[in-house]
């Protein structure tokens, strides 16, 4: 497959789009709604699908997927700076403008409701970890009796377990406190490695309190990222059927 297609980035409200430096990005509008699109060359996407990136270590800035994904985020963010957006998943390429219009027509109500829900909000990511991995002090076991050694080992393990429990309780308290300032929350990973890895949909007016809360938990290593477009809070599955043959 070659040629070009219409890359779709996000749904927003109809407005006069003025993205400095992105003349190819435009809006396809329908009854107050708009799909943010740009004509793109299909080749890099086809290539990506054929040879999915496999990372052995951290992704690099010049990885083809990274380049395209960053571009996607930049466009979403540029609109998000001024209007509510429902980000589409990266790599959604429509056939033509007709398909774009149909998408808006078929999902008008859901899209409207979605935009109302995220308007005036930013997504913030919060991760909490154990503060210090806590390397136990080196202690000479020379001349220690077997019983003393086992006692020492047991005490250390118990102390580590206690500190994990305390931290885990603190992370739960942190999440509850942050949730009070958020309209919606979502846990991003189910892994227990970070004590907390969640996203919060926070009303802009509540952001100062939200951030103050995140700083209140000195016992944890808390990392806050954002503001993000509401990527983690868009759960729409949109289906567009071809009118003519596909």
């Amino acid at each position: 497959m070659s040629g070009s297609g219409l890359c779709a980035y996000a749904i927003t409200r109809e407005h006069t789009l003025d993205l400095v430096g992105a003349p190819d990005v435009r809006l396809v509008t329908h009854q107050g709604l708009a799909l943010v699109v740009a004509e793109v060359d299909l080749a890099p996407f086809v290539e990506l699908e054929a040879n999915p990136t496999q990372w052995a270590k951290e992704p690099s800035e010049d990885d083809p997927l990274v380049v395209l994904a960053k571009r996607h985020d930049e466009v979403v963010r540029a609109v998000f700076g001024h209007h509510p957006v429902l980000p589409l998943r990266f790599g959604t390429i429509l056939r033509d403008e007709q398909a774009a219009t149909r998408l808006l027509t078929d999902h008008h109500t859901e899209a409207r409701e979605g935009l109302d829900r995220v308007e005036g909000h930013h997504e913030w990511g919060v991760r909490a970890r154990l503060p210090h991995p806590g390397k136990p002090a080196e202690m000479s076991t020379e001349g220690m009796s077997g019983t003393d050694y086992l006692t020492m080992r047991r005490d250390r393990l118990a102390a580590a377990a206690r500190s994990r429990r305390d931290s885990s309780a603190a992370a739960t308290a942190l999440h509850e406190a942050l949730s009070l300032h958020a309209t919606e929350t979502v846990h991003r990973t189910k892994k227990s490695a970070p004590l907390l890895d969640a996203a919060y949909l926070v009303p802009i007016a509540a952001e100062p309190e939200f951030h103050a809360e995140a700083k209140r938990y000195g016992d944890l290593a808390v990392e806050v990222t954002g503001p993000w477009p509401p990527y983690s809070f868009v759960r729409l599955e949109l289906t567009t059927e071809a009118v003519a043959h596909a």
Partner: protein
Amino acid sequence: MPEELTVTPSAEGLVDLLDRVIDRGAVVTGDVLISLAGIDLIRLDLRLLLVAIENA
């Protein structure tokens, strides 16, 4: 392709960004030329990567 957009540079890590852009957001199916929503391998890689970074 334009070099710059009116975008505030963000300090988030690349993995955080990729995880959101690739694995979240509305999914469109049906009359699409390409939908990379099916790139499960990449997503799996991302998950492993996130875990690796967490445990680093």
